[in-house]
């Protein structure tokens, strides 16, 4: 398969391969943030009054909040929130009825990223919502999904077409005042995906959103809301890339998941934002709030993430286990190389009886990077027989990188069982030599060893994504043993 080899070669060349800039004409909001900016965004999106009010309320609250710079194990210069563009959209019509109407440059951008927006050309059954800078440009397979009553569309459309659902659930899991970045996002969010799976429906294909930042100095603030009604099932994928630029760019997303009785949501992310160059210049600041609530009994939410990109990552996909017998899972691989910094983990809030959570976190640090796991397991008073199992492993690839673990455990019910295991290991010269002695060079050996180390997490990913993630791990760790 020569084509496959080409792809692999490209991956192995080690450079960030999504760093190109596309020449797409765009329309931006004036730089900086004020109530006017928010009105501008809301107007651009033809939003109803209630949505604008919601945003303004969030903004006013945000003005009273402070950037969280003390508790995360991260260092970066203060962000000047007035030097950011909060809205940028491809100039052409934002929503297309057929592919012929789409700016060819934009189509090429997504082709280059390996995302085909042409339904005919897509072999695998994945429906895609493509978001570039601030707007969703195309959502595929909508008709097919709507036959089953599944709503899968851009967030802007949902606000207009399904206001009741949006009003009911927006901010119900991550309230606008939840934290600094969630408040910021609530004020200025531009687009994202909305998905509703009706009662008893198993979504027949993977749904996915692909995020791309293209414009310079533009923040990306997308908002995703996923609702699985009683007995519904959905598996959702999220991917992202950005051009290589010398200055840092801000990405502050909010993802809310709601699982009703007997529903299951599986949410997978392969995060590949531009990490900055080898000297630590440039890259994305990724400050994301992701949270799901298991609202009904026997519901389940499972987060799987492979984090390889971004200069700074601040992200804790969490589960509120409200329904009795509900289950929360968090599987994570976080790789940092060169001067990347990641402070990531999860929160499992046990409220219902017989709730269960599993946390498997694999941190890999190389170069001069810093990689922290931060996790909270909270067992509330009424959570009889709650169970948590946490496994938290760190793998060090050099002597100059750091791995840190900050597990917080709060138990308010005596029947709870909370288990925590943690290991730290250095990639073994013995292992490398063993591989070498079998004819495998260091690069390949590292890929093998790291993939083996992450296997429990990679196994959770849908097939196509798992392959992608494996290649990504190889590229991210290129030349990292020292």
């Amino acid at each position, binding site marked *: 398969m020569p084509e496959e080899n080409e792809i692999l070669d490209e991956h192995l060349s080690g450079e960030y391969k999504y760093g190109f800039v596309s020449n797409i004409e765009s329309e931006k909001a004036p730089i900086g943030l004020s109530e006017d900016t928010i009105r501008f965004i809301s107007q651009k999106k033809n939003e109803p009054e209630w949505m604008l009010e919601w945003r303004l309320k969030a903004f006013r609250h945000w003005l009273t909040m402070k950037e969280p710079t003390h508790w995360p194990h991260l260092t970066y210069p203060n962000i000047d929130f007035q030097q950011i563009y909060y809205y940028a959209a491809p100039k052409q019509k934002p929503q297309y009825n057929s592919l012929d109407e789409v700016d060819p440059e934009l189509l090429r951008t997504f082709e280059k990223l390996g995302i085909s927006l042409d339904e005919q050309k897509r072999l695998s059954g994945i429906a895609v919502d493509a978001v570039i800078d601030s707007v969703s440009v195309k959502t595929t397979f909508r008709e097919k999904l709507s036959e089953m009553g599944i709503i899968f569309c851009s967030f802007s459309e949902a606000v207009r077409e399904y206001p009741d659902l949006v009003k009911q659930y927006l901010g119900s899991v991550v309230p606008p005042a939840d934290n600094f970045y969630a408040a910021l996002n609530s004020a200025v969010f531009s687009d994202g995906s909305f998905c509703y799976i009706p009662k008893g429906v198993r979504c027949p294909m993977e749904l996915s959103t692909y995020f791309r930042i293209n414009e310079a100095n533009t923040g990306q603030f997308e908002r995703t809301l996923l609702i699985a009604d009683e007995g519904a099932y959905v598996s959702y994928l999220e991917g992202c890339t950005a051009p290589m630029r010398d200055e840092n760019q801000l990405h502050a997303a909010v993802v809310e998941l709601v699982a009703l009785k007997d529903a299951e949501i599986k949410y997978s992310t392969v995060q590949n934002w531009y990490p900055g160059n080898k000297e630590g210049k440039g890259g994305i600041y990724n400050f994301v709030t992701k949270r799901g609530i298991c609202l009904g009994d026997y519901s389940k939410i499972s987060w799987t993430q492979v984090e390889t990109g971004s200069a700074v990552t601040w992200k804790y996909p969490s589960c509120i286990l409200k329904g009795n017998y509900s289950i929360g899972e968090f599987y994570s691989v976080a790789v940092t190389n060169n001067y990347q910094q990641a402070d990531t983990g999860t929160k499992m809030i046990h409220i219902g009886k017989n709730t269960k959570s599993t946390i498997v976190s694999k941190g890999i640090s190389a170069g001069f990077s810093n990689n922290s796991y931060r996790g909270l397991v909270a067992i509330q008073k009424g959570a009889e027989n709650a169970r948590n199992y946490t496994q938290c492993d760190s793998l060090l690839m050099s002597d100059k990188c750091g791995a840190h673990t900050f597990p917080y455990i709060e138990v308010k019910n005596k029947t709870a069982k909370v288990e925590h295991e943690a290991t730290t290991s250095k990639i*073994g*010269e*013995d*292992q490398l*030599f*063993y*591989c*070498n*002695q*079998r*004819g*495998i*060079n260091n690069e*390949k050996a590292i890929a*093998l*060893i790291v*993939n*083996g*180390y*992450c*296997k*429990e997490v990679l196994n959770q990913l849908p097939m196509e994504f798992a392959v992608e993630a494996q290649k990504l791990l190889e590229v991210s760790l290129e030349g990292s043993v020292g």
Partner: protein
Amino acid sequence: MLEIRNLKASVEEKEILKGINLKINAGEVHAIMGPNGSGKSTLSSVLAGRDGYEVTEGEVDFLQKNLLELSPEDRAREGLFLAFQYPIEIPGVSNINFLKTALNEIRTYKGLEAISAKDFLALVKEKSQLVELDSKLANRSVNEGFSGGEKKRNEIFQLAMLNPKLAILDETDSGLDIDALRIVANGVNKLRSKDRSFIIITHYQRLLDYIVPDFVHVLYNGKIVKSGTKELALELEEKGYDWIKAETV
């Protein structure tokens, strides 16, 4: 096949190999015996190119190439195989996946195409029978949770799969029960051929009853102090090393 001339090597500034001379022709089996700490594993590490072992003098030719100039992986690809005294565990990587990667790396080096999935599976089946390796072990993570004996058997399975020109077995017999010893020895015997050579490092004459060597060498204090045929092994078994130590002072 292999010619070692006056090889000296040190670890952490300490000289361990103090002038080794050894010539191995294609198809020969050489046993190396010697007291603990005499440098047997060091010799195999140096030949395999392990980091941290500094060659201070001497030359090694392997199949007309200067072995010491090659990277460890290229030495392996050229056909040098080391069955480790202490095999390494690689969690999460299946034995099969590991071997397939290794085999294809070697094939690519030789300008061959990657092996097809079908041929590979057939090869696994054939070679695992050779050492009577439980098929479950082939699918488990490399050496992870293997018993001592299973690890050793897995080394010989890998040897059979990778088809090297020269195989160094560093105390493969230690940790094997009597039946396993016979099975592994039989496997090795089946792998003997006119163009494959072996260096067998062992403390026990018993192994040499099964794998009959062409030559036996005694390594002591970083040097080969005595060479002979299989009778030398019998003599060592009987008398121990003291007489040799006495002879060499």
